[in-house]
C-alpha cells in the first residue's frame, strides 16, 4: 500500500543555508589567501589567522553577552576576519588585524544586532577604523614585493604584447634578489598624476610616461605579483573565486560587472580634457598610441582594493539592496564614488569609503526600486510613494 504524503507548501525548497553560502565565500577567497602566503610568506597567513581568530572569538563573546545563540559555525565571522586581513599589508603589527576584526565584529556587526541587521559591511568598517587608527601600518611607504618571474603562457604573452615592459621585475630576477620593496600601484597612480614632471603633453602621454617609469607590469598587477595588501594583489584569483560564487548562484554577475565597468569607463573618460581636445585624444589613443590608451583604466581595475571590494564586499547580501534593479544602482554608485575619490579625493584608494557610503544609501535605494507586486496595477507608483 502506498502512502500519500500530504504536506503544506512550500514544496520546492532551497537547500542553501547561511552557513553553506558563507563557507562557499570562504572557499572562494582561499586561492587569493594561498597566493598571498606564497608571495608575502608566512607573515600574511599569520595576519589572516589572527584576524579570523579575533573575529570568531569576538562574535562568540558578543553573542554570549547578548544572550543570543552563538552562531560562529556559520562562517560569517570567518569571512569578516579574512576580509579585514585582506585589506592590510602583510607587514602590519599584530594589533592591527586584532583591532580591526574586533571593531568590525563588535561595533559594526553585533552592536547593530548581528548578522543580517548590520547597516555597513563589517569588514569595511574594520578597515576604515584601522586605516585612520594605524596610518603608519596601513600606508607603508613601501610594500614588500616578491618578484616572481611571470610564467610564460599564451595568455601572459598576449597580455604582455598589450602592455609595457618594466625593468624592475627583470632586474630583480637577473641579480637574484629575493625581494625588493616598492610603493603600491595606487600610490604610483596618485603621485604620478600629481607630480609636475608628469604634466607634460596630453593625458595619454602623461599616463604612459608615468606608468612606463614606475608602474609594475600589467600582467604582474593582474595575477598578483605587485606590492599591496594581503588579499588585494591578485585580481585573477579573486575573479576566479567570484566566478565560482556566480556559478553557485550566490552572487549576481551584474553587480560586480557594473561596478568594475563604471570604474573603467569613468577612469577612461574623466581625466580627458573637455571639448574637441578630448575627442582628439580619444582618437589619438585609439589610433596612434594603440593599446596604451587603455592602460590607465586597466590599471585602475587591477590595482588597489577594487577587485576585492567589487567582488566580495559590494556583493555582501546583508548590506546591498534587495532587488536586482537596486543592486545595479548600488553598483554604479559605488563605481562613481570610487573613481571620484581616486581621481579627485585625498586618498589614493576610494573603494572602502565608496562602498560604505552606498551601504548607507541602501534603505533609500530599496525604497526607490521596490518591485511592483505581481497583479497590482499597471503604472508604477511614484518613487518613494508608499504602496
Amino acid at each position: 500500500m502506498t502512502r500519500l504524503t500530504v504536506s503544506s507548501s512550500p514544496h520546492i525548497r532551497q537547500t542553501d543555508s547561511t552557513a553553506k553560502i558563507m563557507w562557499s565565500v570562504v572557499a572562494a577567497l582561499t586561492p587569493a589567501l594561498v597566493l598571498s602566503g606564497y608571495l608575502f610568506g608566512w607573515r600574511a597567513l599569520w595576519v589572516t589567522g589572527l584576524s579570523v581568530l579575533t573575529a570568531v572569538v569576538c562574535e562568540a563573546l558578543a553573542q554570549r553577552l547578548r544572550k543570543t545563540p552563538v552562531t560562529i559555525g556559520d562562517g560569517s565571522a570567518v569571512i569578516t576576519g579574512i576580509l579585514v586581513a585582506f585589506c592590510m599589508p602583510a607587514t602590519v603589527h599584530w594589533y592591527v588585524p586584532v583591532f580591526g576584526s574586533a571593531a568590525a565584529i563588535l561595533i559594526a556587526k553585533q552592536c547593530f544586532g548581528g548578522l543580517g541587521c548590520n547597516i555597513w559591511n563589517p569588514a569595511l568598517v574594520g578597515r576604515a577604523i584601522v586605516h585612520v587608527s594605524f596610518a603608519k601600518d596601513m600606508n607603508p611607504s613601501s610594500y614588500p614585493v616578491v618578484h616572481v618571474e611571470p610564467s610564460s603562457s599564451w595568455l601572459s604573452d598576449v597580455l604582455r604584447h598589450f602592455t609595457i615592459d618594466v625593468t624592475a621585475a627583470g632586474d630583480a630576477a637577473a641579480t637574484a634578489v629575493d625581494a625588493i620593496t616598492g610603493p603600491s600601484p595606487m600610490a604610483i597612480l596618485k603621485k604620478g598624476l600629481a607630480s609636475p614632471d608628469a604634466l607634460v603633453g596630453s593625458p595619454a602621454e602623461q599616463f604612459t610616461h608615468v606608468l612606463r617609469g614606475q608602474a609594475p607590469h600589467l600582467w604582474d598587477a593582474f595575477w598578483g605579483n605587485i606590492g599591496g595588501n594581503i588579499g588585494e594583489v591578485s585580481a585573477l584569483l579573486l575573479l576566479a573565486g567570484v566566478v565560482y560564487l556566480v556559478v553557485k548562484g550566490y552572487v549576481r554577475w551584474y553587480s560586480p560587472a557594473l561596478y568594475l565597468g563604471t570604474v573603467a569607463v569613468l577612469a577612461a573618460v574623466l581625466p580627458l580634457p573637455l571639448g574637441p581636445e578630448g575627442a582628439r585624444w580619444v582618437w589619438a589613443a585609439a589610433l596612434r598610441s594603440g593599446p596604451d590608451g587603455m592602460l590607465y583604466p586597466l590599471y585602475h581595475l587591477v590595482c588597489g582594493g577594487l577587485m576585492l571590494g567589487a567582488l566580495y564586499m559590494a556583493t555582501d547580501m546583508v548590506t546591498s539592496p534587495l532587488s536586482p534593479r537596486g543592486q545595479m544602482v548600488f553598483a554604479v554608485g559605488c563605481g562613481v564614488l570610487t573613481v571620484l575619490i581616486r581621481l579627485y579625493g585625498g586618498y589614493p584608494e576610494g573603494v572602502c569609503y565608496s562602498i560604505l557610503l552606498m551601504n548607507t544609501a541602501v534603505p533609500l535605494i530599496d525604497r526607490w526600486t521596490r518591485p511592483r507586486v505581481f497583479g497590482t496595477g499597471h503604472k508604477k507608483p511614484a518613487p518613494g510613494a508608499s504602496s
Partner: protein
Amino acid sequence: MNLLKSLLDKAVKSNPVFGLMLGLCPTLAVTTSVKNGLAMGLAASVVLLCSNILISLIKKLIPKEVRIACYIVVIAGFVTMVEILMKALAPAEINNQLGIFIPLIVVNCIILGRAEAFASRNGVVASIGDAVGIGLGYAGVLVMIGAIRELVGKGTFWGYTVWSGYSDAPEALAAPATVAVLAPGAFIVIGLLFGLFNAIGNRRQAAQLAAAQPVRFTTSADEKAKGASAAEPSAQ
C-alpha cells in the same frame, strides 16, 4: 545625607548626557582629552550655577511669554564672563582646543533646560543644589569620555604617557588607536557608554522589580512588565 543623596541622584540618575541626552554636541566635540573634558565641564558647570541662581532670583520678574529669550540673555552674559576669564587665566592650549565651544555654551541645552525645568520653578537654594548636581554629572561624564578617548587614542592621561606609542621596534606592544580621538571615535565611545549605562540601569530596575515583588496576586500586566525588563539584552 539627604542633600548628598539628592546630589548624587541628580548627577547619576538624571545625568544630563546619559539620562537626559542633553548637551551631546560639546560632549562629542571637545572630549579628546581629560584636560579638555574637565575644562569644558567646569566652564559649563559655572555658567549653569550662576544662571540657575540668577534665574531663580528673578523668576517672578520675567514675563512668561518671553522667558526663553530672558534665560538666553542671562546665560549669554555669564558665558561671556567665563569666556573672558578663561582667555585671561586658562592655559592657551586649553583655550585653543575648546575654541568655539565655550561661546557655544550659550545654546547648550542642559543650561537652558535646567533654567526652564528647575530654576524658574524653585527657590535659590534648591536651584544651587540642582546646578551642582547636574554640573557634577556633566563634568564627570566629560572627564570619563575624555579619559577613555585619550587613553585609547593617544595612550596618555592628563598629557602623561601611560602606554607606549609607536616605537621603532618591529614588535611594539601596541600602538594607540588614533580613531578614538577623531570624530568617529567620539560617537563609538559615547554609543558604547550609552549601552553600558542602559544595561546597568536595566539590570538595577529588574533587581528592584524582583525585590519589590511581594507574594501576592500578580496581574498579567505585571508579569509582562517584569518579563520585558528582564529580557532586555544586557549589552548593546
